[in-house]
């Protein structure tokens, strides 16, 4: 007969990840690499937004893109076509990236010479919000056809983002029940510090302000 005993563990799974994320953030800081964790639902326009962002900034800074996907590499191919370095990370069925997976991706990718790395997280408004990836800043894209009620339905996602891009603003004429004021108010109620940009990755509307935000953030990150 084995002698069973109770061992107190008291280890928080999320806290383990949070501590790991803080370590990764410090490592990236010492290398001067700014990591942006980009999240959205599937089809909100992450890849199209990235392509336009890259074309505006690629002569000013060294950019890399890590595409996280459950299992495909269509997005990495599309990004590589813009001329910046891109890799695909397969999460192997998982619905989000955590700090450890992000670190593995970062090390395999080799980001030391890069100024600005975008981590395109798995398309999902729930799970990615719960796991700190170790990114410098969090951004999300909400597209107009998804509706202005999304901050009410996915509050955590909107409360952890430093930036929210409202994409597909060129379709506001069709989706005329989408209220820019309502969405803004709902986001700011959850997160008073969120920066909100109304953009269209298709027409380029609003992209100057978004690109300026990146320029300012990356510059101040590398200076202090």
């Amino acid at each position, binding site marked *: 007969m084995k002698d069973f005993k109770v*061992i107190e563990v008291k280890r928080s799974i999320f*806290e383990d990840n949070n501590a790991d994320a803080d370590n990764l953030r410090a490592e990236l800081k010492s290398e001067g690499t700014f990591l942006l964790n980009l999240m959205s639902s599937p089809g909100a326009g992450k890849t199209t937004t990235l392509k336009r962002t890259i074309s505006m900034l690629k002569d000013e800074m060294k950019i890399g893109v890590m595409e996280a996907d459950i299992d495909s590499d269509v997005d990495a191919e599309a990004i590589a076509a813009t001329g910046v370095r891109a890799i695909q990370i397969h999460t192997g069925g998982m619905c989000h990236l955590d700090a450890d997976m992000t670190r593995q991706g970062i090390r395999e990718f080799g980001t030391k010479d890069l100024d600005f790395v975008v981590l395109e997280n798995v398309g999902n408004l729930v799970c990615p919000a719960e796991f700190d990836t170790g990114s410098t800043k969090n951004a999300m894209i909400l597209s107009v056809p998804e509706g202005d009620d999304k901050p009410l339905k996915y*509050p955590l996602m909107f409360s952890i983002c430093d930036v929210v891009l409202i994409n597909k603003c060129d379709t506001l004429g069709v989706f005329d029940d989408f209220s820019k004021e309502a969405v803004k108010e709902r986001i700011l109620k959850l997160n008073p510090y969120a920066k909100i940009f109304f953009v269209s990755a298709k027409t380029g509307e609003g992209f100057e302000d978004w690109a300026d935000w990146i320029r300012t953030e990356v510059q101040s990150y590398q200076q202090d």
Partner: protein
Amino acid sequence: MHELGIIVHVIRTVEEVGEENHLTEVRSVTCEIGEVSGVVPEYLTDCWQYARRKSELLKDSELKIEILPGVTVCEDCGKTYSTVKYAKQCPYCESYATHLVQGNGFSIKEIEGA
């Protein structure tokens, strides 16, 4: 799918603790889940049934789940209330300046092993 990632992490942690304590068999693992952690206990149990078989130490173990209630504190009036019942807005003073103090976590409380 979210739950599977958590279970993989739990198993890795329990194996570490098992090694430190020279365990050869684990009978149960007790986890404390926050009410607003977004983790679904039923899915977690399903993932456990699948994942435990791959671990020599945990193959016959049971996952026990305890729920920790979600509690929010109001920064304006200082009172606390149930997060699930009232969400972001304080039911006492209607302020939105509130934050969660408990209930979004997930931790391994204890292991029963030999």
